[in-house]
């Protein structure tokens, strides 16, 4: 009797462990490339809408003259950097290339400068939500 109970417990634990492994992959894919976590699961509509919203928000932010944030020792730059980091490769690639991080006078003088960096942060925050959605779908918590 006890042996049976233990076996069923082991089965449950195994099935619980296999789902999160895939879920983590989908979550990371969704973080790295907005929309990819849903796309890999065949959720085309969600991928288009969620990924499209994040990409559009990010591109509009750049077009409006916004800049990305990076930690330079000042704690005030850490929260916006965490927000920016949510866009995954959209943040990492410009970081390696050194593009979009300067907040020079010409950019700051643009009337849409404040909107720009706000859009860039919001794109990252929205992608965190999208990433969690992809994770939940892969884990079987959502349909």
């Amino acid at each position: 009797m006890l042996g049976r109970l233990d076996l069923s417990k082991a089965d449950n634990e195994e099935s619980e462990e296999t789902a999160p492994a895939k879920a983590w992959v989908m979550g990371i894919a969704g973080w790295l490339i907005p929309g990819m976590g849903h796309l890999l699961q065949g959720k085309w509509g969600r991928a288009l809408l969620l990924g499209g919203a994040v990409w559009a928000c990010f591109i509009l932010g750049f077009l409006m003259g916004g800049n990305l944030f990076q930690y330079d020792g000042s704690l005030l730059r850490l929260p916006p950097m965490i927000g920016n980091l949510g866009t995954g490769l959209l943040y990492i690639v410009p970081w390696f290339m050194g593009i979009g991080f300067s907040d020079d006078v010409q950019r700051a003088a643009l009337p849409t400068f404040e909107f720009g960096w706000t859009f860039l942060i919001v794109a990252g925050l929205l992608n965190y939500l999208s990433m969690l959605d992809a994770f939940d779908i892969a884990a079987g918590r959502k349909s």
Partner: protein
Amino acid sequence: MRHFLVMTAFAGFAAIVFGIVAKDSKRDQVIYGLKVFAEFLVIGLVLGWILYFLPF
């Protein structure tokens, strides 16, 4: 006008993501998305008017 358009775009992106992530059925997603969109616009406009009357 530019500010309003930017606010509308922001509300639209947020509403799309909030609607899809928060609800399960398509009908609920659309209704919740429209609700969030309207709330962002109305609250933004109300805050704009309140701030207009503040002297600082």
